[in-house]
C-alpha cells in the first residue's frame, strides 16, 4: 500500500491505497466522486477527463500515486458557490448533452481548451481539439456550439470561473 496526499476540488485528502490504483478509480471508488466516468480501456473516449493542476488529463491513464502533492479538479468541483460554471451552463443552454455520460469529460476538456486557446474559438479548432473525446449521442453538433458559447461566456463572466 502507498500513502497519497492530494487536493481534490479544493479539499485535502489522504489515503493508503494499492499503488496500482488509477486516479479514476481513486476518485470514483475511494472518494465516491462518480461524476468522472470510464467509457473505454484504451484512453480514447475521454469520459474520465479531469484537471490535474489545472490541465486536462485522462484519469484512466494516471496512477493516483502520481498525483501525490498535486491538485485535482473534477466535474463536481467546477461550479463555484452553487453557480454553474459558464461551460456547464452553455452545455445545458445549447443541448450539448443527451445521455450525459461523456458530458463531464467533454466539459472538463472544453474548459482546458479555453485555457489553452482563448475565448474565441472557431468550429474547426473546437472539432480538432475534441479528438480525445467521443460522444455517441449528439453527433457533436451541439457540443461544438456549446463550447464556442461557453468559451465566450467565460470571458464575460470571469467571476463564475473558479480558480483552480
Amino acid at each position, binding site marked *: 500500500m502507498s500513502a497519497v496526499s492530494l487536493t481534490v476540488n479544493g479539499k485535502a485528502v489522504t489515503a493508503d491505497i494499492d499503488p496500482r490504483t488509477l486516479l479514476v478509480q481513486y476518485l470514483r471508488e475511494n472518494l465516491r466522486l462518480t461524476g468522472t466516468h470510464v467509457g473505454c480501456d484504451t484512453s480514447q473516449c475521454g469520459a474520465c477527463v479531469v484537471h490535474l493542476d489545472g490541465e486536462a488529463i485522462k484519469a484512466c491513464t494516471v496512477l493516483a500515486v502520481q498525483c501525490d502533492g498535486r491538485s485535482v479538479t473534477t466535474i463536481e468541483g467546477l461550479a463555484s458557490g452553487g453557480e*454553474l460554471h459558464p461551460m456547464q451552463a452553455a452545455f445545458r443552454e445549447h443541448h450539448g448533452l443527451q445521455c450525459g455520460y461523456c458530458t463531464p469529460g467533454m466539459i472538463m476538456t472544453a474548459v482546458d481548451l479555453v485555457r489553452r486557446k482563448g475565448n474565441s474559438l472557431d468550429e474547426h479548432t473546437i472539432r*480538432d481539439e475534441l479528438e480525445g473525446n467521443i460522444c455517441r449521442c449528439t453527433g457533436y453538433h451541439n457540443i461544438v456550439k456549446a463550447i464556442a458559447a461557453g468559451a465566450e461566456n467565460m470571458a464575460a463572466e470571469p467571476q463564475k470561473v473558479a480558480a483552480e
Partner: protein
Amino acid sequence: MTATGIGASVRRKEDQRFITGKGRYVDDYNRPGQAHASFLRSPHAHATIRAIDTSAAAGMPGVVGILTGEDLAADKVGGLICGWMIHSKDGTPMKAGAHPALAQGKVRYVGDHVAVVIAETLAQAKDAAEAITVDYDVLPAVVETAKAAGAGTVVHDVAPDNTVFNWHLGNQADVEAAFARAAHVTTLDIVNNRLVPNPIEPRAAVGEYDEAEEAFTLYTTSQNPHVARLVLSAFIGIAPENKLRVVAPDVGGGFGSKIFIYAEETVCVWAAKKVGRPVKWTSDRTEAFLCDAHGRDHVTHAELAMDEGGKILALKVHTIANLGAYLSTFSSSVPTYLYAPLLSGQYNIPAIYCEVDGVYTNTAPVDAYRGAGRPEATFVIERLVEVAARELNQDPAKFRRKNYVKSFPHQTPVIMMYDGGDYSASLDKALEIADHKGFPRRRRESARNGKLRGIGFSSYIEACGIAPSQAVGSLGAGVGLWESAEVRVNPTGSIEVLTGSHSHGQGHETTFAQLVSDRLGVPIESVTIVHGDTDKVQFGMGTYGSRSGAVGMSAIAKAIDKVVAKGRKVAAYALEAGEDDIEFKDGRFSVAGTDKSLAFGEVALQAYVAHKFSGAQLEPGLKEGAFYDPTNFTFPAGMHICELEIDPDTGVVTIERFTAVDDFGNVINPMIVEGQVHGGIAQGVGQALFEGALYDSDGQLVTASFMDYRMPRAADLPSFEVGMTVTPCPSNPLGIKGCGEAGAIAAPAAVMNALTDALGHENIAMPATPLAVWRAAQGSPHLRPEAAE
C-alpha cells in the same frame, strides 16, 4: 404555445445533474457487502468444452465463489430467449439453439461466457479467472455471412446447415410477371456492414438478494426494465415478478444494445443469492465489443424493375442476415418484419418480393441497433433508385419524385399502410436548404482544386411507434407493444407521471413534463417524470423503435384526459354546479358562463380532502392510469442530402454539407428533436465511412477497441443543416411520429450516393475508409478536371 408547453425548446430538466456530475448510472451504485464479478470468456470462436478446472482459482485470495454452466443447470436456471417467432416459407418455426447464460458443453463465439468468478475486489476476481483451466477441443469457425449456410461446421445442432429460417414476404408471382415486362432492370449487390453500437456507458449490473423479503433486486443498464423483469422471471426463472425488482437508473445511451437480456445481468442477479452477497459487474470496453449485440450484417442481392419512362414496377430482394452465435432477445424480428416491410420506401411499388435467410455464425449475437432493419431496407431501396436514375440518365431527385407515394392512406405490397405524409414537400425543402442549384458550380470548383465532389439523396421512411399489439402478435411477437402511464396528482397540485418508457438520453423528463404542463396548465417545475424502476412503475414496454413519443406520450395523454374528467366531477361538487357545465381551460375548472372557477391545484386539494362530496357520490383522490395500444405504426419520413468532397490523393472524404429535412409529425421540443437527428446522422455517417466490425477467419474480433473500431469523432463531421416539414400523424392523439432513428436510417445511403456520384462509379462498399476510397478514386472517370465540366 407557452414557454414550457408543446412546441417549445424547453431546456432539459435532467441536465442539471448531468452537467454537475450528479447523474446516477449503474456503475455509480454500490451495495453494502457487495462483491465483484469477472467473467471468464472463451478465447475461441467455436470449441467443445471437455473440462473446466476451478480448483486453483477457488483458493485464490478474495474469491467468494466460482460458478459455471453446470451450476446454472443444477439450479434449473433457464436459458436466454428470443422473443419473436419467425416461421420459414415452408411453415416450420425458426431453429433456436439453446442459449445458456454460462456455456454448457460448448462455446460459440469469442467472448462467450464460460464461468464467473466473484471476489472481494475486481482485481482479485480477474486474477482468479485467469487461474481457471479450461480444456477446449477447438472446432472450425463459421464466420462469413454469405458462406454460413451449409458451411460444414454446425453452430447449433438444431440447425444442421446453420440456417435459422428461410423467410419471405410479398408476392413472388406478381414480381416475376412485372420483371418479365420491364423495360429496364437495375441490379445491386450490397453488403450492409456489421456495426458495434458502443454507447459510451458500458453495460453494468448489480444483483442483490434480500433474505428477509426473499426478493431480488437488479440494477441494470436497460432500455426496458419491465421487459427484463418479465424475461428474467417468466423464462429464466430467477423469481416471480413480485419478488424481482429491476432498476434502470440513468443509462448512458443505448441505441438498441441495452434492450436485450444478456448473460452477465442474468448471472449477477442469480449469483447474488448463490454467494449471499450483492454482485456487481461492469463491462469494460473490450467486453462491450465482444459481447454487446452487434447490428446490421446483411448480404443482399436486389433488383428493381422499371418501365420505359422510369416508373418503378417491382422490387426483388434476397438477403442473408447474420444472426451471430445465438438468437438475441429480438434478433429474429430485425431482418424480417422490421426490414422487408420498409423496402417500398417512399415509392409506389406495385409488387415486392423479399426472401431472407437468417444464419448462425461463430460471432457475437446480432440484434437491433438504432434503426434496426429500417436502415438496411432504406439502404437497399435508396441505393437502387439512385443507381437506376443514373442508368436511365434521369435526375435522381426527379426520378424519386416521379415514383413517390402521393395519396394516403397507401397500402404497400409488404404489410404497411402508410397513413400520411408529403414526400415532395420534404424534397423541395431539402433541395432549397442544400442549395442544390449551386451544386454544379461547387463541383467545378472542387475539380479545379483536384478534388471530386458528389451529392447524394436519401428519401427514407421508417415504421415507428411500435406497435399495435394485435398486429405484432400475428407476426410472431411474444409481447404486446403498448405503453402504460400513470398520472398521480398530489393534494397540493404537484404531479408525478409514471411511465413505462425509459430515457437514456432522449430527454423524457423534459418532453413528457411539457405535455403535462401544457395539458393541465401547471408549471413544468411541478411535474416529475418517474421511470426505470419496476417497483414504482407498474409495467411498461420501454424505449426503442422511436416509440416513446408516439406510444409512451399517447399513454400519458390518455391518463391526463382521465384526470381532467375526474377533475370536472370534483370541480362540479366544489363549485356547486352540474358536471356538464364545468369547463377546463388553461389550468382552471370553471362554470360555463360564470366567473366561478378553481385552479387545477385547488381541485386537486378538493379531490383529496373530499369535503364537498360523499364517498357514495365520488371516490376521493386524483390519480389515473392508462394503457395505450397504437392503432397503426407511425411513418416518419424525409429527405437527407449529403454533399462531400474526395481528395483522390489520400482517399480522405470531407462531408461539406449534410442537410436533413424530416417529417416527424407534431414536435413537442424542437431542440431535442434536432439533437436526435444530429446523433442519428453521426451514426449513419459512421456506418458509411468509418465503422465496421471485422472478424478474422478464425472468428477473432480484430476491431475490439476504440483503437481499432473507428468511431466518428468531432472533426469527422460538419455542422448539420436540419429542417422540418409537418404532417401530423393521424394514428395517435398527439400527431407524433417519432424521431430517434431517422438519421441513422437515412444517412448511410445519402453518403454512399454522394460518394459514388463523386467517384462516377458504384464500385465501393461501406465502410468507405480512406484506403477504399483512394482505390476507388483511381478508377474514377471524373479524375481529370475537365471531366467534371
